[in-house]
């Protein structure tokens, strides 16, 4: 009996001791996720520089109305430009683009009971959450900026193999470019913002949009200057090939050479100037500056910053990651429908019209905005039978087929060149640029050069061409703003001779629309409440 006692007591004590003497085992690391330490190697830094740009910049927080920056944030821009409309209330998309009023052919004045500016501000509170249009682009671009700050902080501290100099230059150019891109988008749509070079921190100093654009240009120039110093193209190309998703690297989405990269930068800087100045007040010097940049901008054969869909592990999904995907297909069920005003701006014999747009049984939007019933649908090349007439395909949900332009494109550069030329008295040269774009996209239109177009006619060619060729590329709202369309009629805004299909089936073709939209957006409440403006800050609300 005694023996048992001792044995059992011993076992008890031993058991206790065994499990106690293990304070060390409390040191449990997260076995699933790497820490920043793992990004402090060459391959780790590459992984971070690739993933954080696309995921933090264009995916996180954008899982609404599709699944990326290119469906949600681009979507708002296309709505505001009257390229598409929506009837669903998600993210407030059915209301952000309802004009103040429209006067129909029969004289009826259709008035918006809740003007856009008031509506946007009603929704600029933290509790409105997903309904706040101001929130998304802000959070995406600051996510992108923060990723860049992290890459820049690591680059230079991480040992690199081989041609370390070229690699470091590539990382830095990559980060400065995307910083420049983030500030370009912020400064082009927000009334004010923050310049932030910290990591996961912020500061309360708000600056106006011009300062954001200046910050953009500063970063872009820094990137360009680094790129200009790169001579070892193979090292550069190999690294860039890892930073850009492999499935993006098809067609003109392949790795741009340092020179092509610089040309993308120049085009973006041209855009920074062009879209943030109202066209009516552009000076000759402004046009010359745009022209100078565009002349050193993207060429037809250049690779640019664009992306494609893929079946899985995508940045934007084939079925919903782009405005094109959310507009095409079954027009009675798609998130967006094609605006009558977009189609009316397309020349009837433009092959791009037949290739992409079909007149269908009118879709009467009875629960959304009042100007937005439509007779048009956008083909989805995946399920619809399309003519294959050689023109560019706007929407194709087949994985791998949908291209989305992240940065500027050849067409945009060429049309900026055209606009600068036309506005500086070189109409024919400008029209030639427009034709370059039409040829590039397979429009199949008769030539407009040497047909004696005057300035206004040439500008109308330009306007129409920008409307169509830059569709869904995230710049349409800038155009509507700089051309004045979105402003109140009293400020020279609005448009006449607009096509409007009323919910009762009546088609007006000479309607007047007074949009009266907010030109530069207020800072979202999510920022202002959690990071109140400090002394000397620029106003966070557009006085309009």
């Amino acid at each position, binding site marked *: 009996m005694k023996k*048992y006692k001792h044995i059992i007591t011993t076992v*008890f004590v031993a*058991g206790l001791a065994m499990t106690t003497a*293990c304070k060390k085992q*409390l*040191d*449990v*690391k*997260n076995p*699933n*996720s790497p*820490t*920043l330490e*793992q*990004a402090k190697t060459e391959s780790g830094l590459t992984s*971070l520089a*690739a*993933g*954080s740009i*696309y995921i933090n910049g264009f995916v996180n927080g954008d899982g609404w109305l599709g699944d990326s920056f290119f469906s949600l944030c681009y979507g708002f821009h296309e709505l505001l430009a009257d390229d598409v409309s929506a009837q669903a*209330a998600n993210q407030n998309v059915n209301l952000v683009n309802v004009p103040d009023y429209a006067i129909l052919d029969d004289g009826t004045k259709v008035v*918006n*009971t*809740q003007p856009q500016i*008031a509506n946007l501000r009603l*929704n600029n509170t*933290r*509790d409105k959450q997903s309904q706040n249009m101001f929130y998304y682009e802000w959070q995406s671009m*600051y996510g992108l900026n*923060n*990723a860049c*700050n992290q890459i820049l902080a690591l680059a230079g501290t991480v040992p690199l193999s081989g041609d370390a100099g070229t690699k470091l230059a590539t990382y830095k150019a990559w980060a400065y470019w995307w910083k420049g891109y983030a500030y370009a988008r912020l400064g082009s749509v927000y009334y004010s*913002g*923050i310049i932030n070079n910290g*990591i*996961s921190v*912020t500061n309360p100093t708000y600056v106006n949009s011009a300062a954001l654009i200046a910050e953009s240009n500063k970063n872009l120039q820094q990137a360009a200057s680094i790129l200009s110093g790169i001579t070892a193209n193979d090292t550069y190309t190999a690294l860039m090939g890892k930073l850009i*998703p492999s*499935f993006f690297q098809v067609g003109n989405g392949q790795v741009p050479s340092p020179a092509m990269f610089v040309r993308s930068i120049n085009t973006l800087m041209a855009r920074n100037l062009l879209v943030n100045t109202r066209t009516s007040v552009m000076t000759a010097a402004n046009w010359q500056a745009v022209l100078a940049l565009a002349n050193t901008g993207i060429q037809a054969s250049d690779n640019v910053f664009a992306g494609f869909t893929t*079946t899985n*592990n*995508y940045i934007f999904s084939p079925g919903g990651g782009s405005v094109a995907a959310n507009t095409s*297909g*079954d027009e*009675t*069920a798609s998130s967006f429908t094609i605006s009558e005003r977009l189609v009316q701006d397309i020349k009837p014999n433009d092959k791009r019209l037949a290739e992409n747009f079909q007149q269908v*049984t*009118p879709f*009467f939007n*009875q*629960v959304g905005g*009042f100007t937005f019933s439509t007779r048009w649908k956008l083909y989805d090349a*995946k*399920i619809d039978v399309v003519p294959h007439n050689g023109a560019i395909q706007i929407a194709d949900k087949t*994985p791998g087929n949908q291209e989305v332009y992240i940065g500027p494109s050849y067409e945009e550069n060429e049309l900026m060149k055209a606009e600068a030329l036309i506005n500086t008295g070189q109409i024919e040269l400008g029209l030639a640029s427009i034709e370059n774009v039409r040829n590039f996209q397979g429009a199949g239109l008769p030539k407009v050069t040497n047909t004696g177009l005057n300035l206004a006619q040439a500008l109308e060619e330009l306007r129409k061409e920008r409307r169509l060729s830059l569709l869904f590329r995230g710049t349409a709202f800038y155009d509507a703003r700089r051309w004045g369309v979105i402003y109140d009629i009293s400020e020279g805004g609005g448009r006449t001779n607009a096509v409007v299909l009323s919910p*009762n089936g009546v088609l007006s073709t000479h309607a007047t629309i007074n949009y009266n939209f907010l030109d530069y957006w207020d800072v979202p409440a*999510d*920022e202002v*409440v*959690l990071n109140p403006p400090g002394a000397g800050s620029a106003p966070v609300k557009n006085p309009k």
Partner: protein
Amino acid sequence: MKKNLLLSIFFLLLFAAGNFAMAQNRTVSGTVIAKDDGLPMPGVSVVAKGSKIGTQTSVQGKFSLSVPPSASILTFTFIGYQKLEVPIPANGIVNVTLIPDSRQLSEVVVTGSGIATSKARLGIAVESVSGKALTSSPQASIDQGLIGQVAGAQISSVDGTPGARTNIILRGINTVQGSTSPMILVDGIESRTTDLSQIDPAIVDHVEIVQGAAASTIYGAQGANGVIQIFTKKGRAGKNHIDISSSYSGSNYINQGDVHQAKLSSFAVDANGIFIDASGNPIVRNQDGRYLGIQWAHGADPSIGAPTAMSNPLNIAHQQYGTNLKYYDHLAQLFKTAYTSNNSAAFSGATDKSDYALTLSNNHQQSNIRNNGYNDRTNLTANIGAELFKGFTIRSVTQLIYTKNTLNPNYGIGNAGGIFDVLNASPFYDFNQKNSDGSYPLSLNSGTISVNGSNPNYYTQWANRVTNREDLLQSIMAEYKINKFVTLNAKYGLNYQHTEQNTIFKNQAATLTAIDLGSYYGAFASDPNGELDKSTNSTTFQNFNGSAVIKTDFEKDFHIHLPITTSTLLGYDYRKNVDKVFNSYGLELPVYAIYNFNQTATQAVSFDNTTPFITYGFIVNQKIDFGDYGGVAGGFRSDYSSAFGGGSKPFTFPNVNGYIRPSSFSFWRNSGLGNLIPEFKIRGGFGEAGTQPQPFDRYPTINPGNIGSSLTFNLPTSLANPNLNVEVSKEYEIGTDLSIKGASGNWFSEINIGATYWSRKASNVIYSINTAPSTGGSLIKTNAIGLSSHGFQASLNLGVLKGRDFNWNFTTNFSSQTTTITSTSGPPIILTTAAGSTQLALVAGQKIGQIYGNKALTSVNETNSKGVPYIQPADYGKYTIVDGRVVDIATKGIQFANEVSSFGDPNPKFNASFINNFNYKSLYFGFQFDWVYGSHLYNQTREWQYRDGISGDYDKAVDIGGTSGAYTAYYRSAYADIIGGRNGARNGTKDYFYESSSFLRLRNISLGYDFSKLLGNKVFKKAVLTFTGRNLLTVTKYKGFDPEISSGASNSPFDRGVDHDSTPNSKSYQIGLNLGF
């Protein structure tokens, strides 16, 4: 006469004693049986009164004791039975029957103090419920059975999906990040991953519930939510017992609020009543099964201020269906009667040195939704104990649980999508109509209406899911009583579960839906070619618990004449948990019906994650009792945790409690008071308990993620915080337990009351708060929140009538509790319910769980928070009051404030239950009412049906400023408008849909009859036929299906006030047969 009899016995005894005064010790023997089941009782303490001589009955209930000649009376005591004193007769044979004691104070409990202690000697409240008291339900689960049985606990059956768990709140909200679920222990071992709802109720001997921190301190840094401990049945002496029970039930979904779709409409029709499109053509069903082109009779007309057709006041619902569009009852097409079977067989027995109990049970519960499968659970439990040598016992309890669930992925717990799709499909769609390709249509979107509708049969036709889960809950317990002072106890538990969920989305490429519309049902696939999804997860949890209990009795052990007894608990508790998840999928299935990964085109891993967690702690608790008069106890527990990494400091939780029993003092006993109130105890306690951060909350990482085929890193937008602290809940409680001497007759002979007031404060409560988006992220975890709760709980037990053949027992349990947020870091924390759509807010100074949204104006002169009137006095005449809300007479629109505010506390003011049990000979009858008062639900289910005018409410005429009509615009405004935002607040959270969900429910009614005696057969020890009804009657004003629903995250601390298309509970009728051999 009685007195004389007693006296004579006394003298007889004296005589007998005198006779044997000089004699030797003699042997007394006998058998003890239990009154309630007639079985022998092992382990009954038998003591010769006035001496220290005693023994325990054997497993056959027999005892034999050598007593000195002076001994004249034997005392029999056993937990839960009335103490019995019996004179020793001359022949020395004492056969007794012990009667169960309904007075709760005689119960002995373990939970909360760690040492078996009579409730009479506890300074804290511990509730206990016997296994027999658990009510039976189609779910056959302990948590369902506990509803209403525990004073102070809020247990709610929040979802009618087979396999769904209840929501349990014991005392207040003490954490926000996690869940309110208490810790579950089975025989002292934590059941970390096997949920209470999975454990077989047939194996339950009794359940102990410790609610407060004062008691759960001994469970340390994870005990803040309280503890529910299950004690399993052991084999009992006598011949081997066989107990077989079977029951079968049918149940129908509850639709208390008469939820239905609008039978009227206000669509455009021609002169013949044919529904037409804008061109005047009749609406027809197209080849994809959709009716396109439906228009409201009156379209959007901004010239009269109607931005949408539905806001046009000219649209008035009236009888239209029956022509080219007919009305189908979608609820009848969706729901069906579900059948449930429960079968259980138990074998048990014991010898002198060992005992065994083996139970096999199966529960098979169908879904109330057509074509939607079932949940099937099989439990095998083996409880084997042995005394290897004197003082050393070892016990093994093994539970194997196998659960198979075949519910379709479109239906499940909470808002899984399917019910929403059905309720929001316009009623002119016939779900039973297929397309020409043999497939049901998928989308039933009619363009402008029925936008969110789809055919439920499409999902069951093209997808299915089978989930298999195996649970093992194994515990091995050894107890060694070294001597009268020291007992050592060691327990090791292994709780393992493995779940594999296989979902098949068949190849839908050939359907018209896919060809014409590009639509299909899938999870990962970006085409209609089908996919296989396999999700696996496992949990391995180990728990070692070693303790030493040291007991002393000053009088007996040290011969000090003080009535002091002490018990000391020294314990060590180690827990290790490893969760693993591995999910994969294969894309593109063949069109033939062989579905395996070999026959998919591509395969990928979608998630692979392991979460290890280790915590251990030391417990020291000291209890000192002063005779029957009172006692004090106190101690602490220190915990280490891997959430804080190696080298971290432990966190320590103290507790102290005490009690005094005035009724044990002679001044009380000998006064009239003692006569009136024979038992009166006051108790009080203070304690702290904690909730640890999640394993890696303090551990900053970056995120890995695939882009195409490359592995990349990105930065988290929700940041971990290395400075997080443990959440601490501090509580004090004060309570009383008392017995009142009832009437002397058969009526009201017993009255027992227990009541406790408690108050607790939780600090450092962890939650992710928003950060400014310019930081590049949106959230960071912090010790953000402070909480303050208090509550009152009471139970009253009445022996209403005690007769020879007839017994009537009544119990009522009461609980009221409330939790206020005392602080948050920074501005309000705004959230959306996990069920989707409804906003919640965590705001300092307000109750937790509040719904946050726009309130309707109730008078024309209301102002906003800045004092600005919403309506100018000149315009007052344009408005009227309808149903208490301000309505614009012209537009018919309800006027909602455009600022948001909290709607109030959705949690119940109290919940109570009333339990009656009647016995007449072999007949048993009982029923239980549950009353939940002051609760609210946000009826999001109803709000979504307002979107396209599908709710049945649209049929109801309202009087607006003297004209009456079923105005579409009136109802639509509740969904879409706020002041300044006509059509601009669609599906906004509005107080219009915030409804009282108080209810009184006949939870259970049961009639049983034991006909074993009728059979006159010795084969059956019992043969009980039972009829049971559950949820048969509900009284409520709630307009949804079921006022008990909560669609938020399971056991969420704050997300409990939303009803969003969850499966309602069912009312069921059950017939059962229980045979004992």
